[in-house]
């Protein structure tokens, strides 16, 4: 296999996971597009305001990664569960979690989704089925498998969708968790957002030349590599994977090849660092998942300029409100420091 360095290098490949085949069109397509656009705008706004130094926590923006969260979560029901990593904003928003709680959390306010105790790296919204994000690589993967185990024990029809990056697949616990999900035939969808980098390190020094998806069959589950900037491709793979989970057929692995536009952590672009070329970056920006979806919608007719303008207006109003809410919210009281160390008896 040749390493993927540019969009053109990508060869989608199936390891037993076949796309649903259902075209992404109509309302479903519009919703996915809108979610992608919304994630993009939220991240852009955070990027704009981060330098004000009021969001005082490590923040990993997912601009460029919008398709996997939007297209996978489009298949999830509110009762389904999402587990996430450090680059979690898109997963949180796509699962329908509360934007206001997220922005307030980044601002360290008492109204944050984790009372300000977690910050960007520890988002949660249980009502929305967003079970939590954590920045220790791969650490939430086994937790998501455990939640699926609980569901299957109770005969609850509930899917665990677990998002992680390519770097996380280098952690042993990822393999242990995949193995157990297969052994116990659990309703899990593993989604790897392969953006070619782990911080500034490219694949060559981290993994042998084989798709991450090749690990699926080795761990007893079907998998596929898809174009992670093609919302429809992700949507069709996820359709099959979620259906398998619901049908009790066990876990699947989807590798979505995509690209991070901003610096690994923080609001800025990082071409100055030189670990990736302007040229490479340009090719991926030209492959913009939001733009691709917009063009698809316009040509297929499930989108038009007015609809988009209306979405933009709605979204920016929602974002304005979320930031206002956050900035007007109080910081946690002194007493909060020592609360919630141990759960009170219920």
């Amino acid at each position: 296999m040749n390493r993927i360095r540019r969009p053109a290098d990508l060869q989608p490949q199936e390891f037993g996971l076949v796309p649903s085949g259902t075209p992404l069109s109509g309302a479903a397509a519009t919703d996915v597009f809108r979610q992608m656009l919304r994630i993009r705008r939220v991240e852009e706004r955070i990027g704009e305001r981060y330098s004000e130094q009021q969001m005082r926590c490590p923040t990993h923006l997912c601009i460029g990664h919008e398709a996997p969260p939007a297209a996978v979560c489009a298949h999830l029901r509110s009762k389904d569960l999402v587990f996430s990593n450090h680059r979690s904003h898109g997963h949180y928003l796509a699962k329908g979690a509360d934007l206001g709680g997220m922005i307030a959390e980044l601002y360290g306010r008492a109204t944050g989704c984790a009372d300000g105790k977690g910050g960007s790296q520890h988002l949660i919204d249980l009502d929305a089925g967003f079970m939590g994000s954590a920045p220790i690589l791969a650490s939430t993967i086994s937790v998501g498998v455990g939640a699926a185990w609980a569901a299957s024990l109770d005969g609850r029809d509930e899917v665990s969708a677990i998002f992680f990056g390519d770097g996380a697949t280098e952690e042993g616990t990822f393999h242990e968790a995949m193995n157990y999900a297969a052994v116990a035939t659990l309703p899990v969808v593993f989604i790897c957002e392969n953006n070619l980098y782990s911080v500034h390190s490219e694949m060559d020094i981290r993994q042998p030349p084989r798709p991450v998806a090749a690990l699926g069959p080795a761990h007893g589950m079907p998998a596929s590599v898809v174009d992670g900037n093609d919302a429809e491709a992700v949507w069709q793979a996820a359709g099959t994977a979620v259906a398998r989970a619901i049908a009790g057929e066990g876990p699947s692995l989807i590798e979505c090849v995509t690209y991070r536009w901003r610096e690994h952590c923080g609001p800025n672009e990082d071409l100055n660092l030189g670990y990736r070329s302007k040229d490479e970056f340009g090719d991926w920006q030209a492959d913009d998942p939001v733009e691709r979806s917009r063009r698809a919608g316009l040509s297929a007719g499930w989108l038009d300029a007015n609809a988009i303008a209306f979405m933009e207006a709605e979204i920016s109003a929602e974002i304005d409100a979320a930031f206002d809410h956050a900035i007007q919210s109080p910081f946690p009281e002194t007493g909060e420091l020592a609360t919630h160390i141990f759960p009170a008896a219920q």
Partner: protein
Amino acid sequence: MTDRQLKYFQAIHEATDLALGWDGDVLLMGLGVPGPTGIFGTTKGLQEKHGATRVIDMPSSENAMTGVALGAATRGKRPIMVHMRVDFAVLSLEPIVNQAAKWHYMYGGRMRAPLVIRMIIGRGWGQGPQHSQSLQAWFAHVPGLKVVMPSRPYDAKGMLLAAVQDDAPVIILEHRWLYNLEGPVPDGMYAAPLEGAAVLREGTDVTLAACSYMVIEAMRAAETLAGVGVSAEVVDLRSVAPLDMATLGASVAKTGRLVAADTGHAECGVSAEIVAAVSERCFASLKAAPRRIALPPIPSPTTPALADLYYPGAREIAVAALATLGRDDHVPDDPLPEGRQWRDTPDPSFTGPY
């Protein structure tokens, strides 16, 4: 108190059986849990009784399976995970310490992880450097974990039942050499609190504060001391996190002298915490330098010839206690039982390999 006698391992078995019966959300998992030897008898037959979905064996994936248990706990399950040796659980520290211990706090109280993890401390018959570590200090160092070390069958059962009902992650360390010791155990459900030390023997001259198997050695030491006119008070810590400073403080206020005995190493260990906490808070009560009895800063040797020198016991505790009284009486080691060459087994019934 009841006069019903059970061995320590039987008490754990009974507690687990009751817990599984008490609440359908209780799960039991671990390498070899359903197996024919059932974790030294503590899980034997429970899969047959409570079903293969709730009592499960697992792959040797200590890290992820702990995460799996945590995940199940966040969805209302109450898993009990068992490790045959503390040394194996070292592979699961990331999910225990970075995750389970912190989830309730870091998510602003929205997450609960009622998780119980049993770890067995190995000793004897050449367990050696990688099968006999006693790392309770690591867990006691981490906020968000409750860490208990029952020394008596009564607590082995009652604290496990309390742990299963607690919504915090609870680490239970069980010393292998306690498994065959007998004690009174009421039948049926009861909870022994996860906090609070117990005064097992009252005394006026010196406080022997010990946990787990060292409580047995401390009781023996107290006997020896009584023989030379020293009245020792034995405090069984029961819980190493949190420590019961009220009980410790009251005892030291009475005796003015302290010997802290732990199954682990001294440096940054539980014995250090006891001595530090007492020195900080009960300094005025102390009439003499407090002392620690713990493992020397040496990996655990395999040959019995060195293992016998490695582990401190009743004799060392008694010597330390006498030293706090300014005495240096010679304390003989208790003679080896008839026909035994080594002290590397708790009793002749223990003939290895484990």
